[in-house]
């Protein structure tokens, strides 16, 4: 190997363009494109009686106006239900433009195309839509009562209902185990809505090439390959005539994995129809009311446990609010219900969820994807058990941990990839030991007493999680060494700031033995790699990382074979250092990879001096063998795929110390500590960055962010002024430590890191506030005014 690059804090290769304003985000493209804008429903539930566009027709610069009735063929059909599931008996998706009924504020009704966005919005404001207002269904419990229906043909507003049951080792059901347990508790937990909220909204830009009859689409997406297939299908175009590119994407966090968004098929359709470039850039209000939210769930929990706090039976009933439509299936509640059990051996487990329609924005995965709710449930349960028994909270967790010798550990359920929920590796006791040491768990009571003596209330909380990462079905990698010695790597999944160009280059440079400067990486461009799934579920490093490593190994083998012929050596004696193949121990017997690349492609026509070496009269050749041997291909390139039998399982534990103001109930995080295990680290700097970002979003979800809907289904805080995302002043310093238990499932031993940081934060902060206040915290987020009210309620209860 040249320099060891795998595992090093290599500086990011993305930065140079991004810090100089040279990035290419969606709205930076298509300077001459027409602009699309949308008339969106102002009502949560209404029937469209009429659309009158006449007043808009005089707007100078208007190019076209479209409603559902204008949409041909498959474009007029409902949008795809991306992930069907047998339990999703009543899956429903919207139309690209609303047909007859609108089911949430923000649903697109009319598309306008005009000279620029200002004019397009002028025209939108002149279009009159006549609505018959229907009764809106808001709030998951109201929806479950089914007084009014979101979809007339969905009884009870229930989209899906699923029960998973894992009996205890001695055959008891969860309910039997709870009945038989020495101690039982029952309680309710609530989590509110939040959203991915990337700083760049969605966007689509399409160019139709009438001469070539082909379409190029740029989309701010987490999956360009799947957008491509959806666009080709909806527009009836041959797949090879459609290319989709994800340019620089300004954050995704889940919302951009959903596809095709109405705009992703309407904009290309209009571009083709008008034979003009068309672009749509989502504005912030549109993002709030017409993309996706997540998190909102209500949990009813019953737990039975023994004197040591060991959970003998756990029964959780989940009401999941999935909004108006289910394009992403029931992935979120499946993840909540399966990942809820975390690092623990639960005696017997029963989990039941109902996934419910409401007249609100649809719910699809947001970083963590259902796990924050599951972890909130499990960790609040652990804390309640500890409180009930008067035990230390970490002792109760320790009593329930899966032990390092018990992997692979089968949780007995079906995970979000349809595969068994079997944990690959981990060391939970060590993780907790590290965490306690870092935060000073054992000395905290003294610290707390000291603070109390000064009239200050401080509290400590802990939260543990296991995250299934790197889900299949597959990703691929393509690696080519060209005759100039450059290495071109491509993979189909996309990037939204994770540093893939850097970490994939680290992997390729390490595998091939070339300087990283020689390596370039392309992601999310179907012109370079057509088969892919996408970036979600903390899967990119595991899936594409391993695929690229495997492709590099193929190319390396081939390079050694060609070099061995040229050097008249045994390939097994060869090494590659700094881009040069040489005989081990004999550095003088060497050949640059660039030359090997030349020799790998037998030429009739040279294009420079170097490539003359590969032409037919250039030198020794074996007349008894064809220039390209059987089973070989010309060129120094290779492709491979990585398709795992099941997910890897990363894990981590967080702890926080908070202080609450006795008068104002202001909540301040004094310390935040993370122990994180994502297997082998490719680039610790980037992993830490991912954790920081996740914790930042977690703090938002714990203390500030919620979507406030009124009873009419109006989102009252659809702006950055009112939806409170944390600024630098709200995120505490985050202290991190890594534990590495390699995954036995893949060649690189890696697990995913993208979502981890966000997962346990609400649980941890709730626990710390509870410890500071002595008041039970059972709903998140919690604001100072919420805490203030809780204090008042608690006082009142004590008096009564």
């Amino acid at each position: 190997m040249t320099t060891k690059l795998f595992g090093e804090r290599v500086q990011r290769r993305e930065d140079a363009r991004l810090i100089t304003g040279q990035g290419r985000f969606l709205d930076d493209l298509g300077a001459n494109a027409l602009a699309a804008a949308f008339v969106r429903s102002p009502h949560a539930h209404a029937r469209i009686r009429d659309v009158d566009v006449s007043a808009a027709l005089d707007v100078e610069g208007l190019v076209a106006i479209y409603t559902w009735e204008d949409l041909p063929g498959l474009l007029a059909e409902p949008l795809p239900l991306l992930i069907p599931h047998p339990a999703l008996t009543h899956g429903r998706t919207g139309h690209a433009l609303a047909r007859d009924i609108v089911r949430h504020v923000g649903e697109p009704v009319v598309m306008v195309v005009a000279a620029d966005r200002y004019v397009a919005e002028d025209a939108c404001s002149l279009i009159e839509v006549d609505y018959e207002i229907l009764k809106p269904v808001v709030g998951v419990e109201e929806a479950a009562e089914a007084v009014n229906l979101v979809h007339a043909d969905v009884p009870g507003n229930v989209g899906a209902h699923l029960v998973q049951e894992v009996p205890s080792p001695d055959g008891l059901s969860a309910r039997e185990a709870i009945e038989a347990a020495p101690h039982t508790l029952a309680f309710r937990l609530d989590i509110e809505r939040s959203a991915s909220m990337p700083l760049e909204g969605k966007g689509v830009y399409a160019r139709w090439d009438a001469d070539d009859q082909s379409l190029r689409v740029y989309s701010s997406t987490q999956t360009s390959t799947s957008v491509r297939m959806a666009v080709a299908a909806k527009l009836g175009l041959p797949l090879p005539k459609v290319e989709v590119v994800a340019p620089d994407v300004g954050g995704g966090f889940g919302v951009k994995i959903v596809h095709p968004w109405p705009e992703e098929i309407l904009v290309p359709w209009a571009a083709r129809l008008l034979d003009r470039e068309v672009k749509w850039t989502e504005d912030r209000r549109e993002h709030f009311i017409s993309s996706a939210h997540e998190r909102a769930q209500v949990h009813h929990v019953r737990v039975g446990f023994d004197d040591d706090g060991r959970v003998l039976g756990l029964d959780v009933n989940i009401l999941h609010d999935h909004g108006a439509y289910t394009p992403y299936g029931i992935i979120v509640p499946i993840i909540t219900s399966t990942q809820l059990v975390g690092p623990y051996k639960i005696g017997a487990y029963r989990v039941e969820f109902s996934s419910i329609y409401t007249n609100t924005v649809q719910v699809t995965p947001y970083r963590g994807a259902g796990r924050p709710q599951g972890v909130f449930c499990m960790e609040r349960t652990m804390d309640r058990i500890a409180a009930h028994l008067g035990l230390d909270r970490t002792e109760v967790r320790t009593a329930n941990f899966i032990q390092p010798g018990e992997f692979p550990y089968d949780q007995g359920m079906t995970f979000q990839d349809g595969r068994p929920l079997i944990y690959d590796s981990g060391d939970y006791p060590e993780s907790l030991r590290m965490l306690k040491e870092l935060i000073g768990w054992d000395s905290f009571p003294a610290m707390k007493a000291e603070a109390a003596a000064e009239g200050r209330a401080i509290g400590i909380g802990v939260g543990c999680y296991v995250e299934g990462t790197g889900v299949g079905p597959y990703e691929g990698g393509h690696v080519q060494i060209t005759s100039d010695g450059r290495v071109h790597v491509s993979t189909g999944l996309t990037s939204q700031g994770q540093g893939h160009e850097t970490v994939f280059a680290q992997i390729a440079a390490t595998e091939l033995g070339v300087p990283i400067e020689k390596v370039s990486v392309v992601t999310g461009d179907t012109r370079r790699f057509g088969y892919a799934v996408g970036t979600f579920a903390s899967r990119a490093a595991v899936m594409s990382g391993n695929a690229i490593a495997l492709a590099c190994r193929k190319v390396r083998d081939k390079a050694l074979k060609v070099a061995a012929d040229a050097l008249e050596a045994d390939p097994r004696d060869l090494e590659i250092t700094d881009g040069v193949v040489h005989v081990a121990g004999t550095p003088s017997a060497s050949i640059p990879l660039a030359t090997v690349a030349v020799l790998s492609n037998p030429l009739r026509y040279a294009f420079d001096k170097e490539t003359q070496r590969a032409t037919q009269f250039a030198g020794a050749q074996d007349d008894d063998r064809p220039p390209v041997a059987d089973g070989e291909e010309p060129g120094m390139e290779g492709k491979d795929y990585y398709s795992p039998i099941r997910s890897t399982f990363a894990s981590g534990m967080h702890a926080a110390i908070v202080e609450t103001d006795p008068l104002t109930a202001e909540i301040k995080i004094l310390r935040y500590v993370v122990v994180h295990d994502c297997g082998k680290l490719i680039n610790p700097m980037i992993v830490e960055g991912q954790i920081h970002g996740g914790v930042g979003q977690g703090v938002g979800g714990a203390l500030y962010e919620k979507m406030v809907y009124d009873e009419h289904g109006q989102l009252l805080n659809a702006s950055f002024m009112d939806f409170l995302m944390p600024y630098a002043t709200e995120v505490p310093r985050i202290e991190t430590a890594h534990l590495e238990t390699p995954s036995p499932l893949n060649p690189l031993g890696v697990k995913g890191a993208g979502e981890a940081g966000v997962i346990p934060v609400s649980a941890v902060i709730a626990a710390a506030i509870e410890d500071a206040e002595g008041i039970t915290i059972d709903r998140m987020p919690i604001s100072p005014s919420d805490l203030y009210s809780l204090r008042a309620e608690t006082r009142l209860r004590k008096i009564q």
Partner: protein
Amino acid sequence: MSERTGEHRHAITLTVNGVLREAAVPARRLLSDCLRHDLGLTGTHVGCEHGVCGACTVLLDGEPVRSCLTFAVTVDGHEITTVEGLAERGELSPVQRAFSECHGLQCGFCTPGFLCTVTAFLRDNRTPTDEEVLEAVSGNLCRCTGYQNIIKAVHRAAEIQAEESG
């Protein structure tokens, strides 16, 4: 803009990154749109269009302003610095270098706003305290980094600035 929209336009002249630029803009055209779409300087990003996120921050006569809350016609005759103008003579500024060195950006969408804000801040305060750094960046939203490395980058930029001027 590809075609006329029939709106009355105002001729404005502004100095952007040291270069005299002219544009004909409707009165309602935002400075952010003028920079991005009329002048082709797409480094300035728009994250919220209501002045909260700070992604669109540029320097107006040296002071940070939200270009999404500024009409282009109001800056006629003034000087604007955008992220494209922060590097001097082809060399990255201390703030740019520090953000990269400290991994102070991930997706990079909010970064131009931070870079402009911090550039003005460190020009006026060359030896900031922790509190002052926090205050300086507290008007810009980032959804990727949790701000940890942005804070580090501001301190590092101050350090580089001191080293190079010292």
